[in-house]
């Protein structure tokens, strides 16, 4: 009898487990070495250029509605003169057990075979559930249908949709570059090699703090870095299984 129940619930458990599949094709991961990151925000502007992020203007910024799919958070410790400043880039962690996938009623966000947390702009009806549940506050909402003045719209990237008002959006690990990399690899009839695909932020990081790769393949640069003893993940105890691995910053403790 218990075997029958296990089989029954097994089917249900698979369904309940976000990601639904046993194993992913790829487990795209970004390793950010906080000892190298110097908070210069080149990644923030590269993301704006790549993913058609709109400019919201001063008044909307005062209401904290700016679009930064990746933002540099700065934590300052201590008073003058022993001031210690720490930077940390925060982007969507593409969580394995994502809180937002649980919340969304219209199945606009789920986990796909690439280990990425998919955000489908067409399916989203703007119930804000995912953004409320997200512990990392990395989801951004299109409060208006934003305009690009006169020739600025010629810079829009055709591989990324321009979202209309009422749609939630977040960092997608530059899915258009992942797709182009896979497309290129398939044209040459080979598997996707490590370093083939790089999101815009990883490509432009001047200090080389960010590395992108597939955690499933053990030889990839990301897997080696992930073995370092400085490795940690943000809010590990919330059990969201994030795919962004940070390397601790080397700093003298007070």
């Amino acid at each position, binding site marked *: 009898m218990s075997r029958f129940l296990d089989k029954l619930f097994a089917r249900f458990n698979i369904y309940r487990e976000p990601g639904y599949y046993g194993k992913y094709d790829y487990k795209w991961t970004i390793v950010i070495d906080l000892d190298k990151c110097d908070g210069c925000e080149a990644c923030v502007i590269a993301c704006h250029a790549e993913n058609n992020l709109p400019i919201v203007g001063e008044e909307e910024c005062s209401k904290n509605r700016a679009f930064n799919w990746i933002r540099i958070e700065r934590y300052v410790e201590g008073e003058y003169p022993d001031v210690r400043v720490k930077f940390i880039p925060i982007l969507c962690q593409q969580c394995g057990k994502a809180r937002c996938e649980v919340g969304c009623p219209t199945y606009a966000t*789920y986990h796909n075979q690439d280990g990425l947390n998919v955000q489908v702009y*067409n399916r989203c009806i703007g119930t804000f559930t995912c953004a409320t549940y997200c512990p990392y506050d990395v989801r951004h909402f299109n409060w208006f249908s934003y305009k690009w003045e006169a020739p600025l719209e010629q810079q829009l990237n055709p591989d990324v*949709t321009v979202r209309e008002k009422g749609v939630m959006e977040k960092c*997608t690990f530059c899915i258009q570059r992942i*797709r182009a990399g896979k497309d290129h690899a398939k044209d040459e009839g080979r598997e996707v090699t490590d370093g083939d695909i790089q999101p815009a932020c990883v490509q432009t990081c001047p200090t080389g703090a960010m590395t992108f790769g597939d955690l499933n393949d053990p030889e990839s640069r990301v897997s080696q870095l992930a073995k370092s003893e400085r490795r940690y993940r943000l809010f590990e105890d919330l059990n969201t299984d994030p795919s962004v691995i940070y390397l601790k910053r080397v700093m003298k403790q007070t």
Partner: protein
Amino acid sequence: MRKFFLFSFIWVATFISGYWINTSWFSDKQPAQPIAFSHRIHAGENGIPCLYCHIYAERSTAAGVPGVQKCIGCHQIIKRDAPEISKVADYWERKKPIPWIKVHNLPDFVYFSHKRHIRAGIDCNSCHGNVAGMDVITRVSSLKMGWCIDCHMSHNVKNGRDCWTCHK
């Protein structure tokens, strides 16, 4: 009370017939083109392969429509005086592109790559229908999501049901 049901029946019937008239006679499956170009003559009788004119189909997401230069390439010699072909010559003199009307129109958020489908061995006719037999291009398939999903399911494409495969 009986009259009420009668009237509502009439109303529903006329509503459906109005919709049917629209979709069958005024449908956008077969828009009128500026030049009455016939695929039947070109691809059917003369057997010109699709990729001769739509050259980008194997190299990029968009299949591309041949430039006026390609039409003039042949039609400077073949049947110069036919009324439709003189129109092409006229466009060529004025160096103006021919404003074709799009028949297969996918929305902007869809990522559809001709290259991937051709290299996966899908024949042009399976989506565009028997173009070689068409005098005026008509849209054979609905190009709606359900239609794409059925094809992906039947060919059990890897990640065929993953939204980010077709949505940008």
